[in-house]
């Protein structure tokens, strides 16, 4: 009987361990967009005792707008209470922030599938070779994930929601008033 348990434990380890290395090798992502004011979390939380009761935070982290099925969820569902600088899956497996797509993929399986295939989200690199992936959190705020065009210019090339200028109305440049000083034929 004991042998069976040992075998089961070994299997569980293998199962729990394998996807982690696979995922880490599979997707090259830029560093996660962590706030320098808060990260590493352990710099404050190391000295704080953990209160696992879901509640409204009033002293710290009040700037976080929590709009992500908040009636069912709370910080420690994703953030790990024992290792403050990590996240954890429902299984209890701890992950780095750089692997957070696995955490999001627990619920958003369809989007995770598309993301892995390179369909959901921005993909750069080469069509015939290595691609660079972005984390879910580079475009979606995990606490309030509805998409708005305000992502970090370093990843997505834009930081504001204003569109680029509209095209010219055809012929507007060839009207005589606009043509003066410009020469009829360019140069």
């Amino acid at each position: 009987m004991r042998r069976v348990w040992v075998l089961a434990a070994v299997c569980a380890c293998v199962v729990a361990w394998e996807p982690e290395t696979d995922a880490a090798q599979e997707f090259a992502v830029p560093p996660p967009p962590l706030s320098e004011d808060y990260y590493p979390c352990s710099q404050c939380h190391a000295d704080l005792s953990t209160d696992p009761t879901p509640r409204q935070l009033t002293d710290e982290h009040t700037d976080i707008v929590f709009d992500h099925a908040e009636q069912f969820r709370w910080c420690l569902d994703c953030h790990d209470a024992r290792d403050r600088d990590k996240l954890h899956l429902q299984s209890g497996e701890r992950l780095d922030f750089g692997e957070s797509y696995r955490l999001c993929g627990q619920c958003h399986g369809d989007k995770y599938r598309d993301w892995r295939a390179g369909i959901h989200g921005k993909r750069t690199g080469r069509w015939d070779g290595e691609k660079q992936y972005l984390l879910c959190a580079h475009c979606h705020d995990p606490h309030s994930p509805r998409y708005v065009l305000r992502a970090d210019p370093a990843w997505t090339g834009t930081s504001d929601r204003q569109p680029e200028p509209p095209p010219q109305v055809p012929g507007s440049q060839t009207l005589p008033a606009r043509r003066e000083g410009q020469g009829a034929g360019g140069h």
Partner: protein
Amino acid sequence: MSESKRQVTTVDARQASRRKFLKGLAAGAVAASVPAPALAQGGRGFLGYSSWAEYFQKNYLLMSPEEKAAALRRLEEKYSAKYGRKVTVKDTGPREDVLFAYALDLNKCVGCRRCVYGCVRENNLPREGEQIHYIKVLRFEDGVMDFERSDRYYDPKEVPEDGYYYMPVQCLHCRNAPCVKACPVKATWTEPDGLVVVDYNWCIGCRYCMAACPYEGRNFNWQDPVIPSSELNPETHYLGNRPRMRGTVEKCTFCIQRSREGRYPACVEACPVGARKFGNLLDPKSEIRYILENKRVFRIKEELLTEPKFFYFFG
């Protein structure tokens, strides 16, 4: 148009003497001996040509490897001198077992036009005077897909706007391309990897292809394009983003200078929301095949049987 041509067409019958008649004949003979492209392109200096080699350059499809190499060298020298910096002109060929296709996620597009200007920078499109944009972003009211009711001049403070959606349109690289059939001089054709390209030097500027294209995928250079030297993209391709001249038709080539090197087109990289997807239709593992197999896709004006290789989908 050239001086000689104008002379030919303005011979007045009432004043025509034998001498004038012979002069007119001679001028006509000169004009007739000039290959058609010569009349269309520019019309300054030697009919707009900078050398005899350029004047006698063949259709790209008919050039021998040596003639191609010479033409590329000549163009590199010409552009480098004109823009005062080193410009390279390649003619990287198509790869085996590659057929390029594009897909665009209409659920994601926010109408920000980053793709339009990414394309302008990459493809050396004119910055002043008559503008050319390969990509036109159309705005539709929700629930409408009537091109005549689309708006391409929308200019709000912020996008996306409530009650609207956006559809960028560019050359769709049709498998059954009407523009290619319309060209009277074979200056445009479909490459083996599916890209519809133009030999700008061979184009006579008749714009039949523009009339034939149901997607407004082609653009005409009414003026000599103005590109500031500092903004020129010096990595160019003969069939792609090398500087063009007045009187030629040009179009999106899926950034042939990038895609043939394995890179994504500039619009794919410029899109902040990742709505644009590009890849090899013949590779079962490519992004484009995943979309065709797993998403609902459509092509615009499918009923025309042009078989575009540009798919719209809802991701």
